[in-house]
């Protein structure tokens, strides 16, 4: 540690974060609950690079030649398929975990660039429906706020089996965020520490899920597509079973995926990284002969840049989904609130206590005064700008690889910088033709 005298040696096993956590646990007797996503170092898409065109490949002109970014979901099953202008969607985040202004900002931003936003564990609010031209309605184990009227207002339905931050676990919403409105929407007593169900109440496996999807299609008149979202743990099997159950899209959320609140031990230790999850999900789709066809793959978990978008698509995803990055875009961890973060014992860039309800940026809160800090119009503009950048960056890379559509990116366009990334992504180590495990 550079801020300590040179004779002091910090333990690698018991560094200050570890010591602080042991002391916190000993003081409180409760596991650490927080928001954000995994903070420890993991293999990421940063461990991959693109092999831009040169002598053996032919690039497209960056500003002159077309490079498509559109995605259609549910064309084979739905009267009204979801048509996205860009391959980047906004992940499910609930009203309750987020303020109404934050939900409105997400809807405005997504709508401005022709993509979708998603409800969360708490139902659909009129504000987010009104400001989202394409709204995906999550169908979660808790079924908080679930009703057929909102289901029929949705542009797609996402059956949530799991989430990257906590595969196998349910959501949480601490009592300080269970306000009168949130409690009413979820039919819960005000102020309780909500611990959502981790499995659906009326189906228990893929055969049941197939019937559940039939029911959802019947209730909505087969008008909208149905997605299935899984936390990345066993993506090959989960994807295959989701396809078998009749999904139009499978959302695979890697362990870098964020959350509004869950146990730290879950966030850091359950699930597999996004870079490892995408190729396995793609393999399942290929084995079932639906890849780049009737079933779309949406990858999520730690997507931050157009490079990440391009890499996820090159590995075989049809689109990506962002959550944490979208919140940052609209103002999360804004340095202008540094004094407020300091007063909470943290700092801009470190804020992770989304569960606490006292977010200085007014995003992960139900406090009216704090919520008012976020202008949903400005937040929406910031998100739209950010989404444009991600999309244009992905196009730029695709053109450099000679692709006239971002979906034409492929694993052959990638090389890995580490053995781990090569093994997980199933692309060769840079400068070699060697893929670990493949001879």
């Amino acid at each position: 540690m550079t801020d300590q005298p040179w004779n002091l040696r910090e333990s690698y096993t018991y560094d200050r974060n570890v010591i602080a956590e042991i002391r916190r646990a000993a003081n409180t007797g409760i596991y650490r609950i927080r928001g954000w996503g995994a903070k420890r170092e993991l293999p990421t898409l940063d461990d991959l690079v693109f092999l831009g065109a040169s002598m053996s490949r032919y690039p497209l002109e960056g500003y002159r030649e077309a490079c498509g970014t559109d995605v259609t979901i549910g064309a084979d099953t739905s009267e009204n398929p979801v048509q996205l202008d860009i391959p980047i969607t906004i992940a499910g985040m609930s009203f309750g975990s987020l303020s109404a202004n934050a939900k409105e900002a997400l809807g405005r931003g997504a709508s401005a660039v022709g993509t979708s936003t998603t409800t969360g564990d708490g139902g659909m609010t009129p504000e987010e429906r009104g400001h989202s031209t394409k709204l995906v309605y999550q169908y979660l184990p808790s079924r908080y706020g679930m009703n057929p009227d909102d289901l029929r207002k949705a542009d797609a339905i996402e059956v949530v089996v799991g989430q990257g931050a906590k595969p196998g676990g349910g959501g949480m919403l601490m009592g300080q965020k269970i306000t009168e409105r949130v409690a009413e929407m979820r039919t819960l007593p005000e102020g309780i520490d909500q611990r959502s169900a981790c499995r659906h109440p009326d189906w228990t496996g893929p055969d049941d899920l197939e019937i559940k999807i039939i029911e959802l299609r019947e209730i909505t008149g087969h008008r909208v597509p149905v997605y299935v979202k899984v936390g990345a743990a066993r993506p090959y099997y989960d994807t295959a079973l989701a396809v078998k159950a009749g999904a139009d899209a499978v959302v695979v959320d890697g362990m870098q995926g964020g959350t509004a609140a869950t146990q730290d031990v879950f966030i850091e230790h359950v699930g597999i990284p996004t870079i490892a999850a995408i190729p396995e999900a793609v393999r399942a789709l290929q084995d079932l002969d639906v890849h780049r066809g009737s079933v779309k793959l949406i990858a999520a978990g730690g997507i931050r840049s157009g490079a990440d978008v391009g890499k996820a698509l090159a590995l075989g995803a049809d689109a990506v989904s962002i959550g944490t990055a979208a919140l940052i875009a609209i103002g999360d961890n804004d340095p202008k609130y540094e004094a407020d973060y300091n007063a909470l014992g943290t700092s801009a860039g470190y804020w992770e206590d989304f569960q606490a309800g006292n977010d200085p940026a007014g995003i992960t809160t139900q406090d009216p005064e704090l919520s008012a800090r976020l202008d949903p119009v400005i937040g929406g503009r910031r998100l739209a700008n950010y989404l444009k950048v991600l999309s244009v960056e992905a196009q730029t890379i695709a053109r450099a690889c000679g692709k006239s559509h971002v979906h034409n990116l492929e694993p052959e366009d990638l090389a890995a910088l580490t053995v781990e990334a090569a093994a997980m992504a199933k692309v060769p180590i840079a400068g070699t033709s060697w893929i670990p495990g493949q001879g």
Partner: protein
Amino acid sequence: MTATTLDLSTSTLREVNGTLHAATDGSFTITHPRGAHALAAGIDAPIDVEIDGPVGYYCAGMHKTGTVLVKGNASTGLAENIMSGTVRITGNAMMSAGATGCGGLLVIEGNAGARCGISMKGVDIVVGGNVGHMSAFMGQAGNLVVLGDAAEDLGDSLYEVDIFVRGSVASLGSDCVEKEMRPEHVDTLTRLLAAAEMDADPADFTRYGSARELYNFHVDDIDAELAAGGAS
């Protein structure tokens, strides 16, 4: 008024449900259901539907208004997420009957399987026979009336549901306790028994509900106690 007959031996599920969804009033009789799934799911108008025979999963799912009468047995998820109106079944219902129901009345004349009323959010459920294990698990609001016996872990992790059982209870789940039957509860039970057309004396029932011990995490703070001069 003469009921319109919809024959599932000659019509598809989509055609039958489509007809029910398009209707604004009237009565319908569905014949030859033969265990069809999602039958009469999503009804959104004050119509009366009678189903002559057994049904599969999610019959009358997300039912919003009107009545559905099933003359037979039902598989998983009968009247799941019911919003209002009435669903009645003359036979038995498998697991998760009335799951997440937000309102209305579900009457099961026979027995209900496991997790009857799981995560219920305001529905009233009256079961003429027994209920399976973990019934009313994580129930949030509404009433579950059981004229027979309840299996293990009744009312586990309950919020604000009232459970009335006439027979025996194999065991109570976490945070579920026996509670006093006050006059308002007798009134509620009397009303529900009458609505369900069940002949039973409210005085024979025991009420169960949440001890509310799981509503909030219990967080210690030794350092704060020490700073305040306490702790031992």
